[in-house]
């Protein structure tokens, strides 16, 4: 198994610089599509997260899901062995699994349960799954070693790990921080579940995406030199 990973990593390093830049650019596309989805919701339908929580979340999902699955399947790690459609299928399978985990985490931390919140909770957890679970599912597949490496080390060792891990960590931490204004007595509509948590997650995701792109682009020469 270890030998296999070594083979894989050496394969990824042997890619040309242009390949890495392309991956980073594709990866930035995800955040752009997120921004575009927000813009469409606001401009075309004049929805906002505060007024039409579940509708907006649904729209974000519809636009974001194909982009994320498509992009990360395109930059998949084991491109030689796995076909594009296989990676897409992995992403589609990872979506509900990740959503379940995310929903469980949210409930542990105190997300309200009830028919009133059911729809938005489901949408929110799918969105979080898109941010966190789907990219590695497309990228690595079910490779246990890679997943472990991703979870264990906050600071990614492989250059391309950052593409997957930083946005995911960013969105989780953002959502965690986003939950803090909820108990305040300001009585603003955005303090409702899951609005501010979504704001936090999206902000964290965007920051994470940007940071990971920068990390990948700047780390690249050093890494190659080191090797």
């Amino acid at each position, binding site marked *: 198994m270890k030998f296999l990973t070594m083979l894989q990593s050496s394969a990824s390093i042997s890619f040309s610089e242009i390949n890495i830049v392309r991956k980073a650019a594709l990866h930035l596309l995800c955040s752009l599509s997120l921004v575009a989805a927000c813009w469409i919701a606001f401009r075309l339908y004049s929805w906002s997260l505060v007024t039409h929580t579940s509708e907006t979340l649904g729209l974000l999902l519809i636009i974001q899901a194909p982009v994320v699955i498509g992009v990360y399947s395109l930059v998949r790690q084991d491109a030689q062995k796995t076909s594009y459609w296989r990676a897409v299928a992995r992403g589609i399978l990872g979506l509900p699994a990740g959503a379940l985990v995310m929903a469980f985490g949210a409930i*542990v931390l105190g997300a309200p349960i009830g028919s009133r919140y059911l729809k938005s909770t489901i949408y929110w957890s799918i969105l979080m799954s898109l941010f966190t679970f789907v990219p590695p599912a497309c990228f690595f597949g079910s490779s246990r070693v890679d997943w472990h490496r991703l979870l264990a080390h906050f600071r990614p060792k492989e250059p391309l790990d950052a593409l997957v891990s930083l946005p995911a960590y960013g969105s989780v931490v953002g959502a965690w921080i986003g939950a803090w204004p909820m108990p305040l007595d300001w009585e603003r509509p955005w303090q409702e579940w899951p609005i501010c948590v979504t704001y936090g997650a999206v902000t964290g995701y965007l920051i994470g995406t940007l940071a990971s792109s920068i990390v990948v682009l700047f780390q690249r020469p050093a890494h190659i030199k080191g090797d």
Partner: protein
Amino acid sequence: MTATKWALICPFFLILILHSLAIYLFTRGFLLARTELSSFSHCSDLSLSPCSIPSSSMHDFSSPGDHLPNVVGNSSGWTRPAISRLIIIIIDALRFDFLAPSSFFNEKKAWMDKLEVLQKLAAEEDMNSRIFKAIADPPTTSLQRLKGLTTGGLPTFIDIGNSFGAPAIVEDNLIFQLANNGKKVLMMGDDTWLQLFPHHFNESYPYPSFNVKDLDTVDNGVIKHLFPSLLKDDWDVLIAHFLGVDHAGHIFGVDSIPMIAKLEQYNTILEEVVQVLKNQCGPGDLHENTLLVVMGDHGQTLNGDHGGGTAEEVETALFAMSLGNPSTSVASALNSDYCHPDLNGKKMCIGTFQQLDFAVTMASLIAIPFPFGSIGRINPELYALAGSSFEVRNNCAETCGSHSNLDSWMMNYVNNLCLNSWQVKRYIDSYSTASVIGLPAKDLYYINTLYSEAQRSWPDIIKLAVSYENDIHIGINDNTTSALQRQVDAYSRFLASVAKLARSEWTEFNLKLMGFGLCIMLTSLSVHLFTIRRVNILCKSYYTFPCSSFSFFRVLTVIVFVAIRAVSFLSNSYILAEGRVANFLLGTSGILNLWSSFDSGTVTAEDLLFLVLTIIIRFGIESGMSKDTVGSGSLSSNSPGNIGIEKGYSLWMGLQEFLPIPALYILVILMCIYISRSSCWKCLKHFFIIGNILSYILMSVHWVLESNMIAAPEVLQYFGKTFAPRIIYSIGLLLFVLLALLVTVNKNDMFLVSKSTESLAIVTTGMLSAWSPTILILLGRQGPYVALVCVLGAWCIAKLKYAAQVDDGKGALTELISDPTPVLQWNLLAVCLFFYTGHWCTFDGIRYVAAFTGFEHFNIVQQGILLAIDTFGVSHIIPVMSLPFLVISKHQIFKKESSKGFLLVNLTQAFLMYGLITAVTTTLTIICVTIQRRHLMVWGLFAPKFVFDFIGLLLVDGLICVGSLFYY
């Protein structure tokens, strides 16, 4: 060995002393009561006042020049009496919307419009009765309110501490003045009155008020005495205090059948009272000049809580009806600004009334000297109700043709207001000289200016009055009225600004003492840190292997968590949501554990179980927020709507009654397994097992009999309700004493244990089995669930990730042993359990019901101890006492036996860390209270939180000291 032992124990005592000193100083500075002046008003004081309208001008029929006319009996007050008898019916915790018609609110709720008889009276055209929105001042607890109502001042927070043993009022007050001036006062109902005024009543029928489970005893007693008394003439003032609504709110909440039944009962009673009074209100009859006041002492929230300063708690209602013939012109001239069509479409006006004004208004109506400390203003609307009728009818009927009723009334009112202002000014002056800090000079100057401004035009009013009397028209009538109105306004401005000043500046914070206290607290924190450092160094000497310093990441996480929790107390919202915040952090720490388990490669079942437990605790906390009283029949929490009890509902109720008992047995079995597994404590083991099993059997008997589901003979019922809990308490005490004896004699010989972990485990188990039955029975039916959650949670925390790391070699072991995460989780779990058991950090968050398990009557010491055990049992006593388990579970992973010294050093570490976490949060609470001392909610929220926190801290310190004596 002994030297080391005492060296380890001493810091705990040092810290306890430092904390006590800090908290004592801070409390002295922060919870300082208003200085109570012991001066009293006297009738003769009147000659000192500048207010003297020649009395003949008021169409007085007594001798000219005498400005103390004796209209009714031997009255000798400052003012002209307007009523001869006064009936005050107090309905405890009367919300404003209980009395006001539902058309005044956006939505009609089930509990509205139940006191219809008063609404009808208020809507009648003849203007002799009226509903007021009465605004109370926080703290809105009954005792403080009664004190405020009778003294006309603003009782401060410190008195809450006396709420249990209500001390007599030493200040000048309405009841004292009544008694002192020969008025006979008859009291019935809540016995708090008798505690406040032990010697002032002519006759009294007190009933115990403290048993909140009891909805009817006080009310039935009042009803029994009220109606006969109404027909007697041996009293001047009758006070009847009903408690049913307050108790129904505390137990069932506002939206419940018992509450509505209570309101309907009051409606019938009041209807009868009004009927009796109306029959007797003819000239010469008993109630010719009687004023009926029906009022609440404070409001309540929908959960039935009160004590704070929210609108729901502060807004109560007052209904006043004068039985004399009304004078429409006067009352209608005082236009209320809050009018609405009532249920029948008639226009109805509701006045506003500050409870601060109650004492002086009543004193002026009944003509007694105003209480010395009163800072209220005579309420014009209420005064007009009674004042107009009597005065005008008696004196004005034939003579004052040319003057309007209004002018003559105004003249009288201005005179009273002058007296009122003079008395308030006198009080403020003597207060600022007598009190240590006094009032700010700027505000005092402003008030003085307002007063002298008002007083400057007073001679004009006298001139006006003289001319008025002699029937010389110095101007047109309009002029008179406007001059009087100007004077009234001037006095009102003065009185309003005094009230404002008093409200904002009343509590005198002694910033020096507070600062001292805070400094000592911070010093104690550094002592704490220093001790931890020393113990850590000591700990390292025990390592037989090269030690890596403890994991930086874990320590950082713990510091961040404690900091977040501590800083969150700076905002009132987070204090309100403290349980949820603690649960959020607990969940986060659980998730982080899961994450690190992933990291190390093996995910244990405990990780997931811990998260599931967090979810359970979280739902418990949320339902605890909405008054979760199992088995009480509260409709608001258990079934929607408020009509009828369905079949499924009763089944559900039955399940709720009996499910705790199997849960209890699971607990017993778990405990027996644990105790019997440790093989080496001989006969003692059986003693503890038998004691516990007996306690648990008695507990289930108590619950079965209490639920009234099984028809049992009276004797058995009595045994179950009263004796079973008492036996449990005594078994607990017995086991505790036994354990203490054993430990003092000689631990190691007694248990015949060679392993030090084993012996520590035995003492800890003994300690817990001594405490737990008492705590469980006090918690009521939720007890077994709480205990199960607590045991499971503790097990998860103790076992977490040890299995995973045990093979990782020595380096990981040191890291493990000095890892503060479990202690933090332990602390967070304790905080969560505090809220999970239905407590929260306000005084109505105390579960008074718990104090009466096994006891019918109130005794300050007994019930105080029971309440303390109930409140802090599961969140402070159990967690601190079971802290050794954490250390033991760490040491059990060692293959070979670790030395006793190492174990104790580790235990000291755990104790110190637990103490430090509590101390840090308390310090932040103290800082936050200091910063927010002028906050709107300081008395409603921050101060109770502070009181709970510092009691908790001292308790934790004390328990650690006790624990260290036992365990070391």
